[in-house]
């Protein structure tokens, strides 16, 4: 079974360009700066998938679903984008004051079905699903992963336009602006799942430079009924944050077929933090972000 899945994965790699072995690997983007004081500024961003934070030593993050939103709510094109062996990199031109959102949003469908006694499986973007999986397949089971990977940078005064939510998957609503984080001050964020407060969700925060310490030293928080959680950062640095919902039951027979595809192009990438290729277990959503915490 393991072997077979790997072989399948190789075939699927054409569409879903990450290997099937990314168990527990973390997706991340790392901006060169998050707080800038000139209004015609540039940042460069690395994007990769790895265990250690923030080291590119595994596979690059694909940029096909990359979307950059300016403080005016309009899209900005990444500049000088390239994907190497271990990381992707691109520049963002901050040509106006305010907060920019850099996001890779994916909706990945995983499906299994029965083809004359042989089990088939497929993984790819929601938008490719209809075209590539026989709709009337026997015993078709699907589950979907909505994953959102974000980071924020601000030129001048922080603004809030980029935090307008879409109502799909897990999304972050700032109570504390993510470019206004300093050590020793409590920061509060709200997570929404499909537009409603994501209550009782576990949130993990891990500081960068993990190579130079023995323990992961992760911080855990849990969202309240209102979807909010608070965290006080003791040390400055770059932090990786992730929350992933438990699989929602009902990922069984795809009676209603897949839900309409959401944002995220044909690139597909794979599930959020973890999620090896396996049987459909139900729909899940993940939210991952990189925050910079400055010293006081």
């Amino acid at each position, binding site marked *: 079974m393991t072997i077979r899945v790997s072989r399948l994965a190789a075939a699927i790699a054409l569409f879903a360009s990450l290997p099937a072995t990314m168990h527990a690997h973390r997706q991340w983007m790392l901006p060169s700066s998050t*707080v*800038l*004081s*000139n*209004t*015609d*500024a540039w940042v460069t961003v690395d994007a990769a998938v790895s265990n250690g934070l923030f080291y590119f030593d595994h596979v690059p993050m694909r940029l096909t679903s990359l979307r950059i939103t300016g403080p005016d709510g309009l899209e900005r094109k990444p500049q000088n984008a390239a994907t190497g062996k271990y990381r992707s990199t691109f520049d963002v031109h901050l040509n106006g004051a305010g907060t920019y959102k850099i996001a890779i949003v994916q909706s990945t469908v995983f499906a299994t079905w029965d083809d004359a006694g042989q089990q088939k499986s497929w993984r790819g973007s929601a938008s490719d699903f209809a075209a590539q999986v026989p709709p009337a397949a026997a015993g078709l089971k699907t589950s979907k992963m909505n994953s959102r990977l974000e980071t924020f940078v601000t030129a001048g005064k922080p603004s809030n336009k980029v935090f307008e939510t879409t109502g799909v998957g897990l999304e972050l609503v700032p109570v504390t602006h993510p470019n206004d984080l*300093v050590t020793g001050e409590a920061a509060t964020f709200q997570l929404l799942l499909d537009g409603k407060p994501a209550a009782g969700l576990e949130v993990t925060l891990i500081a960068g430079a993990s190579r130079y310490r023995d323990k992961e030293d992760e911080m855990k928080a849990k969202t309240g009924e209102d979807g909010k959680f608070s965290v006080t950062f003791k040390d400055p640095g770059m932090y990786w944050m992730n929350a992933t919902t438990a699989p929602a039951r009902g990922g069984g027979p795809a009676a209603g077929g897949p839900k309409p595809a959401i944002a995220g192009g044909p690139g597909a990438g794979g599930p959020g933090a973890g999620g090896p290729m396996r049987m459909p277990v139900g729909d899940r959503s993940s939210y991952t972000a990189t925050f910079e915490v400055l010293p006081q």
Partner: protein
Amino acid sequence: MRIRVPAAVTGLLTTPMMFAADLEVSVEIPRINVAEYHRPYIAMWIEKQDQSFAANLAVWYDLQTAKAEKGTTWLKDLRMWWRKSGRELTMPVDGVSGATRPPGVHPVMFRGSKAPLASLAPGAYHFVVEASREVGGREVVRIPFQWPAKSAQQVKVQGQSELGQVQMTVKP
């Protein structure tokens, strides 16, 4: 001393007001013996007791670079000031921004009759000075004071790295 007398005199001449308390500060930029020396960026402001921002006094930064944008690029390195006030402003700010200064003692006078002190509500405050130097470090010095002063107050604080002696005098 050399500030004190003119202060009193001009206070009498130009501001026949109820109280004309002035804030006199002197900030020493230390001479630092390094191969690559750049003058520090310096911000001075007033904070309330809870450390919330009250008023800007001065920001010395690189005004004279050929490209207008360039000087503001590093204002964020005055990171405390940037978060409390800088990011809200469009530089340069009249009466606040100025060019960087060389090592030495720099006396500056802020008149009680003029912005921002004229509109500063009576209360307990801190005078704050933050210095940040390219290829160097950063330092913040805070001095508490009462405004307006009931009696003359003079406080000296010795900086450790990027600031030398910081002296503040308030008089009724």
